[in-house]
């Protein structure tokens, strides 16, 4: 199936950068890159006003002044309150209860669960998650920038949409099956080793190691990075590059002093979004990393569905994950687009 859900917070971006003229025009009309993001989390109140859709003036029908808004907004509101807001508050409450198991009476009594996070074992898992997320982000940036640059600036104009589409297409497969494909490539008797053997080279042993996780995660997230960078690079004013060349800049200088600064908002957006998505990834570390490479998502999973559940600790971990993600998003909204250019 298409784009996996764990990658999906990037889909807002994907939609704006979708290779279709009207959606892309919309993308360029929006002055702030931050408005491309889903709205910020509600518990960062001063950021809550960032994403304002242009309000359509209400055309007040005489009789339905209150009924109409209720009809439109109440069903979704009830659903969200029941299955998103109350559960999240419950998790927060549970995170304050040490040593709770299913069925116990909830009696919030302190931050003990949060202190448990400071155990060396747990910190190692969290550090590993951060390492995977950061490494994947760096790889995506390194691999994605040349591709985005080539598609946006060097490729013939009429091929651009097709090239982009071709790049996104592999996302239309199930995230599990993508990892599975990498298993069959990387496993000891897999494609890679068969190829190496036929070339007379020594076999590689990548599966169930960090390198396999990096390959899988980079594979999953690279298309998003390329899309975001492409959107940013396509906005680049070519005349600036020509001017730089006329004034005697070498291509290298023009790249570092014109192209990169101009696309910095895109780089920031891509970096942070790939990072937070990688941080919450479950499937790739689980299937490609094996037992030695468990990440934070797996640790939380174990606290609920594992052999020795500890709901309070799991809730504390989950709250921490949400916190890190919200801080990253807040940073992006704050610094992602310092000086929106108005043309």
């Amino acid at each position: 199936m298409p784009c996996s859900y764990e990658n999906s917070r990037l889909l807002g971006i994907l939609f704006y950068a979708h290779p279709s003229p009207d959606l892309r025009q919309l993308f360029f009309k929006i002055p702030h890159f931050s408005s491309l993001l889903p709205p910020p989390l509600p518990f960062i109140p001063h950021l809550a006003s960032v994403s304002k859709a242009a309000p359509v003036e209400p055309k007040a029908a005489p009789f339905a002044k209150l009924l109409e808004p209720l009809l439109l907004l109440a069903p979704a509101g009830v659903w969200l309150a029941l299955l998103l807001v109350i559960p999240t508050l419950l998790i927060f409450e549970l995170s304050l209860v040490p040593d709770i198991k299913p069925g116990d009476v909830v009696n919030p009594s302190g931050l003990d669960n949060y202190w448990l996070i400071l155990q060396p074992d747990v910190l190692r898992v969290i550090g590993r998650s951060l390492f995977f997320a950061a490494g994947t982000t760096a790889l995506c940036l390194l691999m994605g920038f040349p591709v985005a640059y080539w598609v946006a600036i060097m490729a013939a104009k009429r091929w651009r949409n097709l090239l982009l589409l071709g790049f996104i297409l592999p996302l239309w497969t199930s995230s599990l099956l993508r990892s599975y494909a990498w298993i069959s490539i990387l496993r000891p008797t897999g494609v890679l080793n068969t190829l190496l053997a036929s070339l007379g080279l020594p076999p590689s042993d990548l599966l169930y190691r960090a390198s396999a996780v990096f390959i899988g995660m980079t594979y999953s997230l690279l298309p998003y990075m390329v899309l975001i960078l492409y959107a940013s690079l396509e906005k680049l004013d070519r005349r600036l590059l020509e001017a730089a060349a006329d004034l005697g800049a070498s291509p290298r200088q023009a790249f570092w002093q014109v192209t990169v600064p101009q696309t910095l908002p895109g780089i920031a957006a891509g970096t942070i979004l790939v990072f937070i998505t990688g941080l919450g990834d479950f499937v790739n570390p689980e299937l490609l990393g094996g037992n030695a490479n468990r990440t934070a998502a797996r640790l939380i999973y174990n606290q609920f569905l594992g052999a020795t559940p500890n709901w309070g600790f799991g809730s504390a971990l989950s709250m921490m994950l949400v916190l890190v993600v919200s801080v990253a998003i807040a940073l992006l909204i704050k610094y992602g687009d310092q000086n929106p250019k108005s043309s």
Partner: protein
Amino acid sequence: MFSRISWQSLFSLLIFGFMYLPILVLGVYSVNQSPNSAQWSGFTLDWYIKFFNDSRILSALSDSLTVAFCAVGISAVVGTLMAVGLARYQFPGKNLYQGTAYLPMIIPDIAIAVATLVFLAVIAVPLSLWTIVAAHGVFCLSYVAFVVSTRLVNLNPHLEEAALDLGATPYQALVRVLLPELMPAIVSGCLLAFVLSMDDFLISSFTAGGGATTLPIEIFSRIRTSVRPDINALSIVLMLVSGGAAVLAEVIRDRSEKKRFR
């Protein structure tokens, strides 16, 4: 310019290869006779036949389809209403409402999954197929509403006013004027939500309980233990189906765009 090939284009070609390598491997393996090795040992369609006769896979598929159709169906209606409501009204707490509505697109699945599990445990609802539907409805709702709201932003607000001025009731204005304008966005939002629902592993596995097994849960439990050639066949079938859905969505969108701008 044309005579020399830049390193960027070579590099991009390489990355394209990287993106398509796994799919190619799945495709080749799915018609390979040998079940376990990477060696090519002849063409066969046995894995496809085996896959279509595998009752556990088929029942997982039907569970997944049930969940996806129900969750998407509900969120198509509720999400569109919400997007229209949010675009139309100003009210206290609107930012909070809006922020909450798009929350599932930001926070990691695992956080949503555990929260839903705890909530269901607290209110003592037994886990079943329908708890998966309810949980999937939340993120489907976000995506449908998000896609619809991007369309609402560049819609002409005067169309509906004109309809009202010409004597249409608010209901008529909604159904006969606004809805057709929004239809492409609703369709593509639904397709996206459908696809995400079919692919979701974490939220399903936390809300499924013992009775229901969706396709990702079944696939996960199989590929975790071993490499199995019938999974290759399954991958290719799923890929063709979702590729077809993608093309269909693109055609629907394209056609309605042409109609709109004529």
